[in-house]
């Protein structure tokens, strides 16, 4: 069965729609749905710039293979979910510090050392 393209600017419901901000509404703007992850970012290996982001205020290059994204809008708790994508096939990520305003992730290579690695993060959780 094939479905066509669904185009809309505002999605309206007969009841309330609860969003991640805790706000309830009877309609949702299409732009709102685009940013449904709580925060996200794509960062180059050297942590010296930010390639793409949402709800990120800054990135701290903490050390070789260690980066700390800081959030514009805090999470409600420090228990939000963090998804990583890494742009090589040797590194693995490790979250060493997680707060409602930032988290530090460390990228560890197969040479048993921290390794600068281009990466993407996607974060999901309730906002403060």
């Amino acid at each position, binding site marked *: 069965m094939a479905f066509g393209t669904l185009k809309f600017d505002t999605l309206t419901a007969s009841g309330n729609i609860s969003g*991640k*901000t*805790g*706000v309830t509404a009877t309609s949702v703007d299409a*732009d*709102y749905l*685009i*940013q449904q992850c*709580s925060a996200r970012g794509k960062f180059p290996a*050297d*942590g*010296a*710039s*930010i390639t793409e*982001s*949402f*709800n*990120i*205020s*800054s*990135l*701290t*290059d*903490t*050390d*070789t293979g260690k980066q*700390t994204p*800081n959030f*514009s*809008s*805090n999470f*409600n*708790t*420090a228990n939000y979910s963090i998804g990583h994508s890494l742009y090589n096939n040797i590194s693995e990520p490790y979250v060493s510090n997680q*707060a*409602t*305003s*930032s988290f530090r992730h460390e990228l560890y290579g197969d040479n048993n050392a921290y390794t*600068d690695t281009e990466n993407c993060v996607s974060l999901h959780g309730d*906002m*403060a």
Partner: protein
Amino acid sequence: MIETPEFQGTHLWERLCWAKENLEGKPTDIRVVYEDPEDMDNPAKILCPDPNWMACALQGGILPPVEVYWELAKDEAQPDFKKHTRGYLLHNTKPIEAMTEEEAIEYLIQKDIPERVWRTWNEGNKPKMVICRTHQLPEHRQWRNSWQIKDDIELAA
């Protein structure tokens, strides 16, 4: 320049959605180098402002006063902290007006760098924090884990 809607009372996250859709990112070559006195075993850290955040700061009417973040940080520092109960401060406090690039960097320092660094940045044997341009940073990262602020660094007025 697009006009910012009246955002006081609107969730900050939703304001960021609006900004993402309506404002062009504003990359800056300003960086903040700092050393944390509670983390002296590690090298100097480099803070890079986010282009979308800079766009919000320069636009005005979106971001809350930086003091709001300090209040939330105080709450989170409590030993029995589980979750924020004063998140409304982010959303209900009157947003700040448009900032210059320099003012935005000062705001970001007070938001994203530990207070123990920026409150006393010029106390001690050498500055704990330096604002610079990207071309003033080392060109390669071969010795990244030994980067430090120079003891004899000359500061501009």
